């Protein structure tokens, strides 16, 4: 059992931050790695990339948006409650190195995943430029944290309610036009966002890493639920990833695979909402 030591609602209660007591995972976790959670006995195993870890306090942070039954169930957990299973740290850590100028692009709850990675690139001595985006101002998360680990910082909102009106890719394109010293772009967010970040950078020939949070079951390489086509080859996101060269990823296939259980997910969520009433 893994006790929740802190719970925080974010982005107008659409996003939830849980600090979980998991000392061994906290000690080993590195930026880019994820955990699998199973909330209770009937729960499914869901992968969530860690937004942080505190080896001294023995805690890990997960930040998630309620998108279906499992995340809705997790959100009903309060401080003091315990999650039945937490498995990790899983996946390969981000390859962090000093390159020069690095642009970190985050969207939605992807910003939470991007934060420890951005910090690591900053700490190793890169000039870090961050672009974070949301649909609207109220949905933007971790602005202060991201700003704190960036040398330059930009915000975009789809509706123009805050920062620049437009998509993260608009800001990215301008930056890439303006400066020629960008060595790496890291894009983490919804699959369509990552796809378009990659499309944008491809023109400039700049290496772009993305983090794929696919459907998983065991998440240790045993089942292949998480497979994605990268560079024409099948890769398992759980053990070969979660980070890949975005220019090699078949995003269209990935989107279809992510939608494989939409019907069941809807059925499960509606059932849960009825039970909650």
């Amino acid at each position: 059992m893994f006790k929740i030591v802190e719970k925080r609602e974010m982005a107008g209660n659409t996003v939830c931050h849980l600090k979980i007591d998991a000392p061994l995972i906290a000690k080993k976790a590195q930026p880019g790695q994820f955990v699998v959670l199973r909330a209770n006995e009937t729960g499914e195993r869901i992968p969530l990339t860690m937004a942080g870890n505190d080896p001294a306090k023995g805690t890990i942070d997960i930040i998630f948006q309620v998108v279906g039954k499992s995340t809705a169930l997790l959100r009903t957990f309060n401080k003091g409650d315990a999650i039945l299973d937490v498995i990790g740290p899983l996946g390969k850590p981000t390859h962090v190195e000093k390159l020069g100028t690095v642009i970190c692009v985050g969207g939605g709850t992807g910003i939470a995943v991007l934060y420890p990675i951005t910090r690591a690139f900053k700490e190793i001595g890169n000039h870090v430029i961050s672009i974070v985006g949301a649909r609207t101002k109220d949905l933007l998360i971790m602005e202060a944290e991201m700003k704190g680990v960036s040398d330059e910082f930009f915000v975009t909102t789809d509706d123009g309610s805050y920062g620049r009106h437009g998509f993260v890719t608009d800001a990215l394109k301008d930056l890439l036009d303006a400066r020629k010293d960008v060595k790496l772009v890291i894009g983490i967010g919804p699959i369509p966002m990552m796809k378009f970040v990659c499309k944008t950078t491809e023109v400039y020939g700049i290496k772009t890493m993305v983090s794929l949070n696919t459907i998983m079951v065991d998440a240790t390489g045993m089942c292949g639920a998480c497979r994605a086509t990268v560079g024409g080859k099948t890769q398992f996101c759980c053990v070969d990833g979660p980070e890949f060269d975005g220019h090699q990823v078949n995003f269209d296939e990935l989107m279809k695979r992510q939608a494989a259980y939409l019907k069941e997910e809807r059925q499960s969520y509606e059932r849960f909402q009825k039970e909650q009433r």
Partner: protein
Amino acid sequence: MAEKEKKEKIPRQPMPEQDPKVRSRNFEEVPYGYTPELAQKEANRCLQCKKPKCTEGCPVGVKIPEFVNLIAGGDFIGAAKKLKEDNSLPAVCGRVCPQESQCESLCILGKKDEPVAVGRLERFAADYERKQGTVDLPQIPPSTGKKVAVVGSGPAGLTLAGDLVKQGHQVTIFEALHKPGGVLVYGIPEFRLPKAIVDAEVDYLQRLGVEIKYNYVIGKILTVDELFAMGYHAVFLGVGAGLPVFMNIPGENLCGIYSANEYLTRSNLMKAYLFPQYDTPIAVGKHVAVIGGGNVAMDSARTALRLGAETVHIVYRRSKTELPARAEEAHHAEQEGVQFKFLTNPLRYIGNNDGWVTGMECMEMELGEPDESGRRRPVPKKDSNFILDVDLVVVSIGTGANPIITGTVPNLELNKWGYIVADPETGKTSREGVYAGGDIVTGSATVILAMGAGRNSSKAMHEYLMNKSNTVA
């Protein structure tokens, strides 16, 4: 001699089982097991050979004539205890061991008649004891003060843990998943091995003093070196084979195409067959193809039927003679309505706009000269391509070595396929104090072979642990 002739006249007793039409739509166990009367009748067929061949065929050396004799005499609990002297998981083995190619294949009765149904009797004795409620614990010797870490709670790890704890060692199993049993829980379906039986066998080991830690992916949360640093004197790696193999043919990442590992894990471990009571979903196919001819393929095909498929085809590139599955499994599948497409090989998958599989292009094969495995090599038949309409495919063509653990143990020798190099007699690896057994050494094999490996390693590890100079740390 007169005695022997009389015994041979009792026919081998069949096990009562669920009607195929009924059972192909439920997840309850297929056979009901022997009644005490049937068990005694079957046990009485045993000739009680002075030099029993059957025992030689058992990877863990169960004293078969002795336990069978106890059943014949009506001492069912005594029979169960006799079994447990050599086999920590008799209720499991009675169900999933390939007895027809092991103990039963060597039975003298089998020369003229059918062999004694050793597996059915083993299952009967273990079930009888469990149903009685109280399973007595053997006397455990005083603690040796030695700590053993077992990685993986599958058949190899459970067997080894039971053996070592009974010798007074302190045993901790580190399991990556949230439930114990390894392939017994994620792989083998409920209708072939009810999970309550695995739980009972694991519970017995825990009562003996084995500690099990769940959600520990060794190689990630802790390394083998860290286990030694924590005070473990020896480590056993029984992590199973792991990575599913795909055919790498076009369209294989369409939705509705599963590895057998994923399909069975969803259904068995995550209980997707009870969706939405359980949260994990599983795609329900109307027209299902299972690629491969092993026991796992049979389990997948039979699961698909139970989930509601209208047609299920086993697509296998060789002929019925080469089918690697146990005859009983293939027979059960056939009885339930699974259809076999022998000498057929998939070439590519066809999908719709949503990315779901709708068809599978196949090619007919014919058998050529024997290959290195001794089986006749399937060769493509010209102009034989055809399309099979399918909306769900389970790829069940084997597994490869999972590198999570093997890649994090420095100086651990691996073979060219990534499996651990270990002495077949002892499980000893290239790293001192590290032993390995089961599928991570041999590649995909059977439950009982993994148990045999666990048994062998437990003997070697016991010797290693008791040799003080090895474990002064």
